[in-house]
């Protein structure tokens, strides 16, 4: 009886060891992995509000203009112009574009889309500034604005997906319209399957795409907890990874896709409450916080110090003519003392009352909070950290029921309209700061300044004012790393995809450039593929053989006895 058992066990172990070889996808398929995976049904009203949902939708639906690594490029519109007198944009449309059901794309579709989104608002295209859309002729539309509106091209022309009128005109519940017809677009790919249960998407090429041939026959999006594992395992061609994993992955033949300054960790300050309502106090905090150390520790060196005017140095709109608040504890102490605080036993006191702050955070940001707490405590401002659940935190911040709080937001490289959302928006990550009249005026003014240079100047002024007043303290910008094999070239889009999305998943990476000839694509790629997977096993963790050897010895031992 024992013998039988041993053999069975050994056979089972061998079976486990023998089941091998992952089916490597061919060169005409690309698989993109991501930890969340499910972004909803890829129609404008069907996708989840998060940015990746927009990406899924963007493969199917085109906008009037689009962006690549260098800026705006034509999409459904070949060219566009702005008429100052009329305050209107005119778009010349591409007449080769066809809906995937074979119908021609026309100017009527654009007019219809604007009216449709006015009736059924779409998060990614706020049409409040649009008066009306006129069809000039079959391939020309004119969009008239209610007021001067600088972010128009980014926010509307570059973000609003155009819908086919002949499909959507009968749809009055767009969120629940999940018909096959809902997926008729002009984009480079067509949805073949969406599985919520597996969080996966399968697209196939739209060979009638008007801006070039899709690079891949199939595009697959899958969900994977750890990008490094699926890349090394050969289960994906592209995935977000940890910065530390890049070295190993590069040795294995993957390329890093790197982006910075798309995202910001910041410190919200309750500027409605003593002593935070004093600008000097906020400045003291800014001087007292060592932001270099935050990058080094919380960001493990992968990131950069944030500028206090919020817009990052990589943005076209950034100015370095603003207070930088380099770490300077002496200056911080001076400012605190100018407010009447005295350092007694390492703690600042005023009128016998000890200074004591509470930093509220969500659980994910514990590490950053630990460092901030130590820094402030060392400065003489004892700080305690309290982790709250997100809703509670948001509500406390919104009701001004906190001292300081950690917050985070993106869209930093987007149109400077983002500054309004950051400073005066109605969200919990907005500073909601209205105290400075000049700042209020400038924020409004830049929105309606159509001349880019003049607008630039105002935006510079805003950053200066903002860095002086410090309604919130921007801490650092973490870097983002993706890794991919050489099936295609990925990049981060200038000012982010559409409204400022920080994902390197631009659909143009999946379309052959007009420059790239329609050369046979498979031959060049195939050997690369095998090289990659072969070299992969040689590296990474040195302890790999031990368990294998042990297992093997165990099997042999079982069989012999």
């Amino acid at each position: 009886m024992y013998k039988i058992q041993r053999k069975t066990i050994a056979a089972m172990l061998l079976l486990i060891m023998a089941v091998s070889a992952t089916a490597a996808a061919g060169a005409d398929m690309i698989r993109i992995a991501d930890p969340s995976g499910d972004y909803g049904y890829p129609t404008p009203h069907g996708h989840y509000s998060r940015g990746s949902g927009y990406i899924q939708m963007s493969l199917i639906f085109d906008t009037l203009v689009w962006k690549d690594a260098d800026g705006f490029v034509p999409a459904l519109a070949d060219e566009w112009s702005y008429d100052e007198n009329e305050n209107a944009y005119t778009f010349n449309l591409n007449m080769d574009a066809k809906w995937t059901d074979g119908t021609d794309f026309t100017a009527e579709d654009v007019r219809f889309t604007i009216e449709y989104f006015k009736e059924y608002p779409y998060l990614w295209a706020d049409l409040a500034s649009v008066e009306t859309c006129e069809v000039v002729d079959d391939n020309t539309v004119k969009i008239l604005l209610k007021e001067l509106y600088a972010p128009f091209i980014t926010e509307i022309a570059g973000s609003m997906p155009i819908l086919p009128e002949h499909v959507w005109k009968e749809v009055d519940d767009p969120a629940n319209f999940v018909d096959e017809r809902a997926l008729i677009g002009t984009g480079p790919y067509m949805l073949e399957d969406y599985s919520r249960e597996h969080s996966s998407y399968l697209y196939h090429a739209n060979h009638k795409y008007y801006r070039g041939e899709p690079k891949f026959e199939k595009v697959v999006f899958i969900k994977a907890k750890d990008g490094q594992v699926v890349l090394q395992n050969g289960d994906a061609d592209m995935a977000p990874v940890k910065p530390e994993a890049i070295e190993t992955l590069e040795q294995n033949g993957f390329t890093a896709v790197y982006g910075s300054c798309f995202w910001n960790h910041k410190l919200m300050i309750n500027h409605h409450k003593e002593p935070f309502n004093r600008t000097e106090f906020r400045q003291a905090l800014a001087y007292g916080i060592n932001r270099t150390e935050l990058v080094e520790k919380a960001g493990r060196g992968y990131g950069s110090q944030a500028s206090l005017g919020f817009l990052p140095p990589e943005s076209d709109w950034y100015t370095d003519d603003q207070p930088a608040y380099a770490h300077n504890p002496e200056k911080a102490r001076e400012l605190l003392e100018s407010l009447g605080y005295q350092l007694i036993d390492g703690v600042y006191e005023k009128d016998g009352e000890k200074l004591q702050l509470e930093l509220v955070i969500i659980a994910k940001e514990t590490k950053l909070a630990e460092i901030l707490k130590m820094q402030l405590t060392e400065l003489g401002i004892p700080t305690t950290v309290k982790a709250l659940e997100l809703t509670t935190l948001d509500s406390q911040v919104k009701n001004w029921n906190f001292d300081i709080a950690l917050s985070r937001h993106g869209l930093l490289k987007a149109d400077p309209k983002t500054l309004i959302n950051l400073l005066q928006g109605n969200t919990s990550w907005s500073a909601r700061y209205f105290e400075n009249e000049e700042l209020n005026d400038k924020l409004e003014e830049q929105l309606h300044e159509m001349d880019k240079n003049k607008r630039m100047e105002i935006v510079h002024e805003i950053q200066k004012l903002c860095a002086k007043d410090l309604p919130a303290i921007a801490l650092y910008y973490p870097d983002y790393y993706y890794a991919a094999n050489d099936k295609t070239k990925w990049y981060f889009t200038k000012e982010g995809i559409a409204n400022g999305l920080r994902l390197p998943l631009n659909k143009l990476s999946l379309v052959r450039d007009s420059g790239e000839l329609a050369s046979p694509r498979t031959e060049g790629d195939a050997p690369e593929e095998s090289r990659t997977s072969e070299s992969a096993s040689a590296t990474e963790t040195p302890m790999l053989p031990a368990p294998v050897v042990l297992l093997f010895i165990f099997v042999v031992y079982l069989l012999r006895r």
Partner: protein
Amino acid sequence: MYKPLILRSRGATIGLTLIVLIFLIAAFAPFICWFDPWDYSSTPLQRPSSVHPLGTNAIGQDILSELMYGARTSLTFGLSVSAISLLLSVLIGVYAGISGGIIESILMRITDVAIAIPSIVVIILVAAYLQPNLFQLILILSLLSWQYGARTFYAQTLSLKQRGYISAARNFGAGNGYLTVKHLIPDLYPIMLAGFIIRARYAIFMEAGLAIIGIFDPTTKSLGLLMHHAMEFAYMGTWLWWLLPPGILLALTILGFSLVGYYFEETIDLRHRSMSSGRF
């Protein structure tokens, strides 16, 4: 030479040794560690070295120090939950047993309902809406784990009530309170001890589980949280010195409590055959 009964069992001796060792580590953590676990001044993600025997974590804190302080939190958590839930069990079980009548049936009905409620569901639900801190979590878990003990103590009280000396005392005019304090409680000590150990084991294990799914006070350092943070970097080869040690320490702690627990279960089992329901 006199040898305490417990040390005559090999399993229990090993278990006791483990518990004592881990207690020592936890109690003397500040004296053993040469780093403050909150001190982030070292380079992040270092490999083990003579300075940092287990390397450093993602923000440059010493993992060995985190481990020792983590054992502290985990033990505190386990023992507090165990103590509070034990107290509740004894109060409810003994009170129900002594009083009889309507109080008895109400209390035991509540106990049965509580036994039917899966505690993990309640914990996740509460945690989804609140971010409980260490103290609140101890309370929540205690409130969710008294019911099993209450049944045992109730059964014990009933059986003890039948004993001759209790009836004798009652005939001499002893009141319920007096009976409970003077006779019942001392008789229940061994079961309380066993229940305490087994509850502590359960709570320490729960701590790890909760921390791993992200439901534990993140501003503390515990074994579960240490593993939770280690998981993020586990696939980069750091698992050997970051994920493995807290896992082993946790396994050893639980082993220690289990072995001692078995010993008590067995001894009590021999003494009171009738109540070996296995539920503590």
